[in-house]
């Protein structure tokens, strides 16, 4: 299954302007789609003729400088029969970080979405148990967002002058 065939099938189903920023970095078809299409698109990819039955991974991302598109989700799907991969991206504003859940399609999406919630604060409607997974439960911020620093700010034994800060 070539990337052109994929792209034409998707465009035939969802319309020519449904996918922006179409690229093929290192041979992997990468598309950006609108958040409203998520469930329909994933359902079509998984259950339809294209056969992307394996959700490899999903991750969140934060581009603080893109107005109204600060947060994003990136999905990697894999068709194990024809050995084709596809990368799908979607972006949405940081003031409205809501995405639909994919747990009804793939059971593996459960923890991956919890991780995205834990790190970026993206809430997934319909998720059975959207609580923090890796960080402490009472943490009140979303650490992977670019505005937060890496190090623990409450350390008093680390002198900045030694570390060039």
């Amino acid at each position, binding site marked *: 299954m070539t990337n052109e065939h994929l792209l034409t099938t998707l465009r035939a189903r969802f319309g020519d302007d449904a996918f922006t920023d179409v690229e093929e*970095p*290192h041979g992997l078809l990468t598309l950006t789609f609108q958040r409203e299409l998520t469930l329909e698109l994933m359902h079509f990819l998984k259950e339809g003729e294209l056969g992307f039955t394996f959700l490899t*991974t999903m991750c969140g*991302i934060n581009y603080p400088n893109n107005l109204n598109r600060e947060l994003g989700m990136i999905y*990697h799907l894999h068709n194990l029969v024809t050995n084709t991969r596809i990368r799908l991206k979607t972006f949405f504003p940081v003031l409205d970080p809501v995405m639909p859940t994919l747990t009804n399609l793939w*059971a*593996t999406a459960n923890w991956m979405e919890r991780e995205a919630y834990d790190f970026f604060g993206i809430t997934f409607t319909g998720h*059975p148990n959207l609580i923090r997974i890796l960080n402490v439960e009472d943490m009140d911020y979303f*650490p*992977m967002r670019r505005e937060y620093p890496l190090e623990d700010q409450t350390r008093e034994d680390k002198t900045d002058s030694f570390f060039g800060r």
Partner: protein
Amino acid sequence: MDHLISGPSGPEHTERRVQPAQEPLPLFSAAGPGAPLQLRDELNNELTTLNLGPTHPATHGIFQNILKMDGERIISGVPTIGYIHRAFEKIAEHRPFYQITPLTDRMNYCSSPINNMGWHLTVEKLLGITVPKRAQYMRVIVMELARICDHLICNSILGVDTGAFTGFLYVFQEREKVYEIFEEICGSRLTTNMGRVGGMERDFTPVALDKLRTWVKEFPTVMREFETMFNRNRIFMDRTEGVGPISAERALNYGFTGPNLRAAGVDYDVRVMNPYSSYQDFEFDIPVGTTGDTYDRFMVRQEEIWQSLRIINQALENLPEGPFHADAPHYYLPPKQAVYRNMEALIYHFKIIMGEIEAPVGEVYHSVEGGNGELGFYLISDGGRTPYRLHFRRPCFIYYQAYSEMVVGQSLSDAIVTLSSLNVIAGELDG
């Protein structure tokens, strides 16, 4: 499994005994987290809540499972992870490429060379560097050695969990010998930080090749001893057959990869599907199980050890001559003798380590077959010193979700054995 339902005997309890719990109760209460603890099920049987972990001799690594049990049988379980969350992805956003290699070591620390090589392959894909054949074969040898080490730990600890400690001692002696080989190659035993972008840091010394050849000759004897102890052992088979099964459809839905998926019957191996580092040159089989239970997982790993040994033999025999690294002075650290004598080499060394190199803008996803499955690296580079975003597709994190489903209806000792056979490494789980 009626005989496993414990409880006081007597006429008033007979009804309970012949009516085992029917549907597994939903894993998460519809009322959400913080809802009051459910102490009785719908048949008004009293349930026990058992806290397994985070510090427990049988959970290899720290993760917690709160199990609801009806006597000895598990009704449901809620896992909690994150007890060793070290924020790899956040740290990687602040480190140049070479400083991320030690981080990748510490994900699946039982087979660090595979993580290292996977990371180097990702960076090479981004930078468009071709690695010479000799370096590729060297990488295959160390990756397969690491895979053997990982499977040996998993299987011997599975033996320890069923009460058989000797296998662990025999197998760890072989691991010590592999540690010596790793020391010859890179200087470190466990967290190897092996390889460079573009190849390996040094050629295999004659001592290393010697140790490799000796090990490859002596290991089959020890492995056969280990197999004699476990493979057809009546007690071991009784403990592991039919325990913690998962069907192939369910496993694929859960994103299983690696030996756990192959035990369920799906022959998906990244080395065959998307070959990297010359794996297409080698002839090896993919062992596949049928029921996806603990015994199948154990046997798949045992057989994979033999296949890895086969690959190492082929690679050693056909090791091509040539350079052990690519000609990429902007990305490959210059040799130390040059760094101490030559100004230009010193400057290159400094620049590369500090990250003042030109990385192209782009994104790449590359995956390797780790000890536990498809270990993926999704790297987004914005041309700066450090990656803009680095996401690790960690197989342990993905398949551990299925654990609560796999142990429903099993007894507690079966749950321990299932957990052990999944080979959950806490470093990879929490990342």
